[in-house]
């Protein structure tokens, strides 16, 4: 059932974001051609459009991930979703997985547009030089397994951090839902309250020798930081589950 929930969330978000990413690729190809042909005016306009599309993609992704939770589960669509034979936990996990998927798609789309830009803008001879240099660095051991590992560590921390942040947003929305009126105001106040609480707990943990991601004796540890983010996400998600499962009260 989780896969089916992801499928329909993918359709709902994809109908808005996928055309945007298709436009991004198209503009990057056009931009590459104008660079190659040295068309100064076209280049300037396309750079502005390219930047605008990337910004719009980021803003829309953030907006849709919050909006989908609010309207799909706690708006009128909630009558459809909560009547489905799936658990409340499935709904929450699905929203967090969907967020990870769309963030990954956004990053891939930007990288792909960069590759398209490079392939169309640079002369083939330069590209071939670049590739041979890249493979030379690998064969000479200038790019090592540890470097790749570090990139993976950074990505893991970023992904865990994003999941923790969204879990906090979802929990805040769920707390706001407990209010009879002014539910959005309730959600915003809950978010501020949770943020203050996090700082307070971090200070307490600091006194105990552990600060988010840091152990005083070993310095910053990516995996520890990712683990802490996931624990935070689990705590917020448990709160969201408790409210949606036991105190759901759709308008």
């Amino acid at each position, binding site marked *: *059932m989780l896969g*089916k929930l992801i*499928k*329909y969330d993918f*359709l*709902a978000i994809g*109908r808005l974001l996928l055309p945007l990413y298709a436009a991004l690729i198209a503009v990057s190809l056009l931009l590459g051609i104008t660079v190659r042909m040295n068309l100064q005016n076209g280049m300037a306009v396309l750079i502005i459009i390219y930047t605008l599309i990337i910004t719009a993609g980021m803003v829309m992704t953030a907006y849709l991930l919050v909006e989908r939770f609010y309207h*799909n589960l706690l708006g*009128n*669509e*909630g*009558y*459809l979703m*909560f*009547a*489905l*034979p*799936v*658990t409340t936990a499935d709904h929450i996990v699905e929203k967090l997985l969907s967020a990870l998927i769309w963030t990954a798609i956004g990053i891939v789309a930007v990288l792909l547009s960069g590759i398209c830009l490079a392939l169309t803008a640079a002369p083939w001879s330069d590209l071939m030089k670049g590739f041979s240099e890249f493979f030379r660095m690998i064969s000479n051991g200038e790019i090592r397994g540890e470097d790749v590992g570090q990139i993976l560590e950074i990505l893991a921390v970023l992904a865990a951090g994003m999941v923790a942040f969204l879990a906090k947003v979802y929990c805040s929305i769920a707390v706001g839902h407990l209010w*009879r009126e002014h539910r959005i105001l309730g959600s915003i106040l809950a978010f501020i309250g949770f943020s203050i609480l996090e700082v307070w707990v971090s200070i307490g943990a600091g006194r105990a020798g552990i600060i988010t991601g840091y152990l005083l004796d070993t310095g910053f540890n990516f995996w520890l930081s990712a683990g802490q983010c996931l624990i935070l996400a689990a705590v917020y998600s448990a709160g969201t589950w408790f409210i949606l499962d*036991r*105190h*759901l*009260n*759709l308008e």
Partner: protein
Amino acid sequence: MSILECRKLTKRYGSLTALDQVDLNLESGKIVGLLGPNGSGKTTLIKIASRLLQPDGGELLISGSRPDENTKSIVSYLPDRSYLPEWMKTSQLMQFYSDFYMDFDRKKAEELMASLQIPGNVSIRQLSKGTRDKVQLILTMSRKARVYLLDEPIAGVDPAARDYILRTILSNYSPDALVLISTHLISDVESVLDEAVFLKQGRVVLHKPADTIREETGKSVDAYFREVFAC
């Protein structure tokens, strides 16, 4: 055996008691009218049965179990509002119901949509309110469920649409299922009811076969309802 059973079911919203110690047993194979004025607790009872609300006291059982994801798979619920995602096309909605409900009869849904000349490539946003209501009803009634919970299915629609809705309910529900219709428009549904439950301020004040009510009172269910709920 009761397919839907309430034991001392109680629900409060702050100081307001929406359901007050409700005891009720409803059996399969019946069309039951859950009748009462606005605010009498009809929607609250249906929402608890659909697990959209949790009771504050007592319990409600569907086929012997408290509402959960298993009971949801045998309950077909029609809310009292537009609840379908507006961006979805009717063909996508039928696929959605097929994906989540094993008992959804897609062929029947397609036939009913075709009889209303609703094309599959039209999004819900493009449909009129009346047509949206009909699409919702078609999706709900195209399931071979054991319990149908229909919350105000004929409120806010024109008389021709009411006839269509009642015909659709009558010709599509599984004969061994319970159909619970909540409404305050008694005269429109009276002809299809096997039993009537009167809810007044969160309490069941009457639960009898419709024929018995007519025999005992010498009045139609609608006329008797007006007498019981006279202001």
